[in-house]
């Protein structure tokens, strides 16, 4: 029954694709910077850590929604509301957005205060993993 086998294979593929959405994410910093705990990462990406420079992915990148949901427990609209309090009181600037993980890595490698997030599979020697998203 080749049809059943095809169907099964398709199902397995679909399941694999479904779990691939929850990829392994890591927070990366400059190689000279120190590791971070979860609370520090949350503070940095919600505009509460004036000493760090958060580096963002584009709004449409699936990794962005996934990262904020996993780490801050908030969706992107909520995150934007939090940031609008910070921006319009002059306490911090909106994070700069970069088109992909390669661009994030480049920005992080160039600035010792920068903190970004990328897929674990994209990590290389130019950046250091500061926190692994569980």
């Amino acid at each position: 029954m080749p049809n059943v086998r095809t169907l099964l294979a398709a199902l397995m593929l679909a399941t694999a694709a479904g779990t691939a959405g929850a990829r392994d994410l890591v927070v990366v910093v400059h190689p000279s910077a120190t590791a971070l705990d979860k609370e520090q990462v949350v503070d940095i990406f919600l505009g509460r850590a004036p000493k760090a420079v958060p580096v963002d992915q584009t709004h449409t990148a699936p990794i962005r929604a996934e990262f904020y949901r996993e780490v801050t427990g908030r969706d992107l609209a909520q995150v934007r509301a939090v940031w609008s309090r910070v921006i319009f009181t002059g306490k911090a600037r909106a994070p700069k957005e970069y088109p992909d993980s390669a661009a994030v890595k480049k920005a992080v490698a160039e600035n010792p205060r920068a903190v970004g997030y990328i897929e674990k599979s994209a990590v290389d020697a130019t950046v250091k993993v500061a926190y692994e998203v569980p």
Partner: protein
Amino acid sequence: MLPVPRTAAWWLSALAVCTTAHAGDLDAQFSGYGTVAATYADTHAAAYRTSWQQSRGSRGKVDAGVDSRVGMQLDLSFDDTFSATGQALAQRLGDRGKVTAEWLYAQAQVTPETVVRAGRLVLPAFMLSDVRNVGYSQHWAHTPYEVYLTFPAVDGAQLLWRDSWQGVRFSVQPTVGRAEADMYYERGATGLTPARTVFHRLYGLSVTAEKGPWTARLGYTGADATIEWSTMPAEPLKYTFSSLGLQYDDGHLMAMAEMMIGKTDTAHYDIAGQYVTAGYRLGSWMPYATLAWLDYEGTAFSRLPDARTSAVGVRWDVVKDVAVKAQLERARYSGQQFIDVTPGTDPRKSASVGTLSVEFVF
């Protein structure tokens, strides 16, 4: 408030000098926020407003000016230490829309924890005072009138110190300066009375502690003011406002409570206000409810029953950077949000007010 007073003009020219000096590494960011709202007070006995600086409101018909506003901000960074921010805000002041400079200051990051600012600033008198106009940042259609007294923007200086200790984030923010604005006071028998209100000296301290989903905040504001009545002799006043706020937000449940005690040296205008509000996020929807009340304790408010507002509403995050809110509230005529109250109206009675708004940021 003058559109651009001397101090602000001075800072603007200082800014221009800095800009030319550092034109090489100048980094500029433009952003903004706004509200387009229709507000309807289901009454002909009074007009409903949302700020002490408004002299016109909704009275039995839809008013698009009570809650609508737009703010535009320009941030300039000259280097890692010096930056400047200007924010223009268009909103109803008096009986029509006006544009003023809400923020216009130069800032120096003197240590990694400390920022010093000078120019025009918004006084963080209460928990949300400095973002009161940024509707997108809040769940409700407007901040409760019972606590959020309108302070005009201050021309002065501010220090902002932020650090964390034992996993608790602290923020200490003292402000000093001067401010003035046309305010409109509802005075019972004499009706709505305009008065230039001059805060010769305005000073405040805001202390915040945050841990996980919790935020606690203590605020103190003092003012040496003169209310320059058009029809009566000018009235000098010393005010103090003490406030305590508590907030919880775990991403799903959001709850907030705040109390404010206002004292005057003459004990004429003593007040005490508080509110509690809570909402729960269900995907992009957030239903919420708010209760607020204000006790009139001053001698000038004899026989005025306490003001009360109860509100229910929902916020819906429609698309990126845009939220829609619908709010229904019942508010007593004794509240200061009601002006031009028809003589003979029972101040214990309530009116219904509905607000439909679109909030956006860019």
